[in-house]
């Protein structure tokens, strides 16, 4: 187990290097640089800016300087927020995005798993139809549409909630609902499908035929086994939620990293893009690792070695 984790982390270093290299190359291939704007800057100003940010050096040198910085924990200065370092920008935005993401994740699972399970256990009942109906609606309605709808109802019409911003519990409600809608729907659908599948397995029939109480069968045999696909999806889902959604953060004016990242791409803010990608890659890789470890915990047949 420990060897497995260490090996995976060593691989991660290589993966991160490759991810950074690809990002760096793509970033410089995209037309337009950080100083391109319609009202052109004087050539001497562009020269001075390039010098200030080290963009006057050959690309390979810029890349290795960057990697050198990363190894020392320095992600550089942002070009589009030039009073700030990338590290401080990420550190300021991350807790906000993560708070939203984790709350949305918990809400999604708290709604999705019970509803999915109930729908499967009482297949073709009213609760099944309601669960499928809501799952379909939430899976198909885009976040920004849901967000605007909520805003019109709860802010503009009822005046119950502030439209946007950060700092109070009220300001969390609408963005968390919007973020949770799709993963909740996905969770419900996957839980339902996998529960139905597990219910037809031989070991469930065996458990019942040896006279176990229905609740014991459900909890010990059906529930536990049906969670494997749910956990598989939940890992990337959580990664997706804690790295932030541009659309939701932009709509609700959340000072998070999802919004910063997309603005960084638009501004060709190379150091902010690289820093965000690095963070995303680490988050996704670590959550995948957690998912693998959870597999082994849920299903003893799965061995990590």
């Amino acid at each position: 187990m420990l060897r497995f984790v260490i090996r995976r982390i060593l691989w991660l270093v290589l993966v991160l290097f490759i991810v950074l290299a690809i990002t760096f190359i793509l970033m410089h291939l995209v037309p337009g640089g950080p100083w391109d704007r319609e009202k052109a800057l004087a050539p001497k100003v562009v020269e001075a800016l390039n010098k200030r940010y080290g963009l006057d050096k050959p690309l390979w040198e810029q890349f290795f300087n960057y990697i050198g910085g990363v190894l020392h924990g320095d992600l550089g200065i942002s070009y589009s927020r030039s009073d700030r370092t990338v590290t401080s920008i990420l550190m300021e935005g991350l807790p906000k995005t993560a708070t939203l993401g984790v709350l949305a994740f918990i809400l999604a699972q708290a709604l999705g798993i019970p509803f999915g399970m109930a729908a499967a256990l009482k297949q073709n009942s009213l609760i099944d139809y309601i669960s499928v109906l809501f799952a379909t609606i939430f899976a198909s309605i885009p976040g920004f549409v849901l967000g605007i709808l909520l805003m019109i109802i709860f802010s503009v019409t009822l005046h119950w909630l502030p439209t946007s911003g950060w700092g109070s519990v009220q300001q969390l409600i609408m963005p968390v609902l919007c973020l949770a809608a799709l993963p909740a729907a996905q969770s419900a659908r996957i839980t339902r499908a996998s529960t139905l599948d597990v219910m037809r397995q031989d070991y469930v029939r065996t458990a019942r035929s040896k006279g176990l109480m229905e609740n014991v069968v459900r909890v010990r045999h059906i529930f536990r086994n049906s969670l494997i696909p749910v956990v598989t999806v939940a890992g990337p889902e959580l990664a997706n939620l804690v790295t932030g959604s541009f659309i939701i953060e932009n709509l609700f004016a959340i000072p998070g990293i999802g919004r910063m990242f997309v603005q960084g791409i638009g501004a060709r803010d190379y150091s902010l893009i690289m820093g965000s990608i690095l963070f995303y890659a680490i988050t996704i890789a670590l959550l995948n690792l957690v998912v693998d470890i959870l597999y082994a915990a849920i299903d003893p047949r799965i061995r990590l070695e």
Partner: protein
Amino acid sequence: MNKRTIVFSLMATLITLSLVFTGACSSEEGKPKPGSLKDPQEITLNLGGEVVTIDPNRASWSNERSVIMQCFDGLLAFNADLSLKAMVAKEIPTVANKGISSDGKTYTFKLKTNVTWSDGKKVTAKDFEYSIKRMLSPDLAAEYASFYFAIVGAENYFSATEKTAAEKTALRNAVGVTAKDDYTLEIKLNDALPTFINLMALWPSYPVRQDIIEQYGETWTAPPHYIGNGPFVLQEWVQQDHYTFVRNENYWGTKPYLTKVTYEEITDINVCLAAYRNNEHDQAGVPAGTEKAIMADATLSPEIVRYAQLTTYAWQFNVTKAPYNNKLVRQAIATAIDRVAYIDKVRGGVGKPTTSWIPPGMPGYDANLGSQYAFNPTKARELLAQAGYSDPKTLKIKFQYANTGTNPTIAAFLQAQMKDNLGVDLTLEPMDPKAYSALYNSKQFDSCFTGWGADYPDPDNWLPQLYGTNAGNNKTQYSSAQFDAIAAQALKELNETKRLQLWADAAKIVSDDLPMAYIFNRETFVLKKPWVKGQVTTGMDGQIAGDMFLREIYIQK
């Protein structure tokens, strides 16, 4: 935004750099009646997107200026009608008061002696000397530094990126800005430049504190170190979320009514409007295209604030490329655009159709200039035939634009105009904003859609930079020896009447040659709550309407 694959509709305009000045200005209601003031005097406004920097020396975007203007006062400032007034300076230097030497090359500013920083220290000429030299430093790479290259030694110093520290210091000392004593600042220019005085009212020349910057470095802009000499103090800055300003209780001038100003950073214009309707904000922009509905809304229509901006949008042609190198083709295109229909039918009447470059409300505006290109489809077809395209189908033209804000709308409109009025197929090429800017700056485009907003209200900010041969913002590659000769003369001309006449002559040459088809002037359209009084809007407003005179605003009960 913007500007930015993801574009914020707030930045619905193509002009993002620099300020936009307007001709019209409005001052309503005047002073508050006694007892009518609400307690507390607080206002919440929306700044839109996050700034790059709020360091006055380095700033260049309109939202940055919205912040800087509250916290700093320069030597000079603009009045509501865009004329200059003395701020930290005792008076505006002129030849008569010996503030300007007779050759127009030396400016002497006498400073008021009662001006203080928000921490109580005196503002002196040394602060201005430090600030201007810092702004010209090659290491700082300030974006507006090139505007100040008229100062002796400025360009040499700014270009010294590769020099040693000692060489840089020597070049810095050679810059022609000197504090003669605590309250006298002398600035020497390479050559006479009568519009130079405007630059002393712009933010890059505002004073900054040497001791603070040396102590805190790049992070000096974070409160509580962001010390200025303006009517408000920045108390809190939460990135991407909000700015809180409080009244500067040490302010040397008339203190503002407002005790607290909050700028929030909502980037989605629809949400901005929702926040306004939910009474979270006191002022809001509206999504483009909704203006007509808002004018028809009984609650919102009395809250509309509209005023013209010193911004012109134009269809630019690459005059070195066929078929755009043919003046008759350009004239045919310009004559085939029904600008009035665009403003009235597409934009709900917001904006002003134009056939010339310099907008109304600025010196040098001529209402009749370009009237020969007013919409006339018959004449347009004749011009096209004269150009050698008797079959319009044979003319192939392409149009590149940043795919943001209202640009797709104007692109579709122009495409339809070309088809309906000329029978010509216009190929549209929408682009990512940065990719578009790179194409535009490299002058590789065919024809494109771009605007220009004033940095200061004078033709010399509008003509030589865009139409001078090889000038920095001349992307059409237009070149006229006659224009260049007149512009060179006009830039230095000390006689104001003669100077404006020279610019009028230069403008006429451009209007005849038509490297761009001028389409419309921009108009600001925002909503303001009825309890917000004393608002003064000007063409110098930054991102927030009325932000130049927040010090005049009061909240009525």
